[in-house]
């Protein structure tokens, strides 16, 4: 067994736009492009839940995409971390009163890191990812110790 955990050095990202207005969404993409270039940290936008370690969600959860979010989370292999970026993903933001919006992402799946802002700046997203790395490493260590992933607590 390799003693060092490499999760911190190679976080692969899965980005899902739950029901964001695209604002945070394009800022996530901007993170990957030359000016912010998160590949410096080994981040790759995989676009495939089976390959990803970090699920980066922008936008609030609504009746239609609730199942999709659950599904994506379930398809990701352990250890995995969820980063919610932007006011909508955190709480529903400006749309929290809307009839079709259930609220933040943590209504559906456990969220590990919250990135505030509307739209979140790429810098803030990088902050969030960096924080997520610590969480990811912790979860990886946990997984190794117990041999089983920690059961995701069902959110209320």
């Amino acid at each position: 067994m390799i003693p060092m955990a490499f999760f911190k050095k190679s976080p692969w990202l899965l980005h899902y736009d739950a029901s964001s207005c695209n604002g945070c969404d394009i800022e996530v993409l901007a993170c990957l492009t030359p000016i912010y270039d998160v590949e410096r940290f080994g981040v790759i936008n995989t676009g495939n839940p089976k390959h990803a370690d970090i699920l980066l969600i922008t936008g609030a959860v609504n009746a239609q995409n609730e199942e999709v979010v659950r599904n994506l989370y379930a398809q990701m292999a352990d250890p995995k971390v969820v980063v919610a970026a932007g006011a909508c993903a955190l709480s529903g933001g400006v749309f929290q009163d809307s009839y079709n919006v259930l609220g933040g992402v943590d209504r559906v799946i456990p969220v590990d890191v919250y990135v505030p802002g509307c739209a979140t700046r790429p810098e803030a997203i990088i902050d969030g990812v960096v924080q997520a790395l610590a969480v990811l490493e912790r979860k990886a260590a946990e997984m190794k110790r117990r041999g089983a992933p920690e059961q995701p607590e069902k959110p209320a």
Partner: protein
Amino acid sequence: MSRRTIIPFGPQHPVLPEPIHLDLVMEDEKVVEAIPSIGFIHRGLEKMAEKKDFQEMAYIAERICGICSFIHSMGYCQAIEAVLRLEIPRRAEFLRVIWGEMSRIHSHLLWLGLTADAFGFESLFMHTWRLREKLLDLIEETSGGRVIFGVCKVGGVRRDVDAEALDRLLAALADLEADCREIAAVFARDASVQRRLSGIGVLPKEEALRLGAVGPTLRGSGVPSDSRRLGYAAYDALDWAPVTEEAGDCRARCLVRMREIAQSFDLIRQAVAKIPEGPVSAKVVGAPRGEYFARLEQPRGEVVYYVKGNGTKHLERFRVRTPTFANLPPLLKILQGCELPDVPIIVLTIDPCISCAER
């Protein structure tokens, strides 16, 4: 007949940052039919107008879409101002044009990058987005936000841009324009790009009109229709003509957007040259009573805002018809008979903004 398979496309898919689901009915690698299902991003935004103050609603209207955010708030405000019979200061109108055109350039650059990504041209995508960041810096400097400008309000704009900042803006834009030309040359001339764009997803002029296409999708098919010709805001004081291309294929739509970037630079220059001094906002009194139908040109095409007020601070009805919504029928049409690798390109050439379409 070969066996038909269905390839699900989205809502989570790497080439579509936004959630739309297409069931592609395939015969080998050929698409026979594309069946969309939507609603993944519906937020029920129009209904919120009934609960929110009409002034607060400008923020929500801005968040219909984070890419053309400014023009959404501008359109909403124009509609409300028309209902209120509120004359807004001329300087505010010019500033709205400047920001509106900046958001058009940013949107088009974003689109060009994503298209490059769709045909697997990573470095072109990266370089396009590198340029876009320069523009975002300018937007942040003048408006305070990178993608959500947050400057438009009912009665004008929330902040002024002083002469010095406008000069800086012009200088920076001149640099950016030269860089954009370099990128545009690749899109227009590179052989491998042409192979993926020309002759793909052809939308003939009659079809475009019949299916109600708008914006660059329509102009790429040779119809010179541009709502800015209505002369709203300060467009009546500027000298320009709609950009059109004849071919109607993906390349034509791409060229239209590239030429519109150049045009927007020109429009900003004209607007900065002609901007009058004065206040930037008018006092809002009363509440909207009556209805209005505002038409504006977004980067993606014509957008329509319908507002109906009943004299209270809550609107009775707010309705938006966004360009992507209008462009979906032509999209489904041109998807028929295309090859699987062309699907992302064709989907992208209408510049889909699903969050606009579903609100």
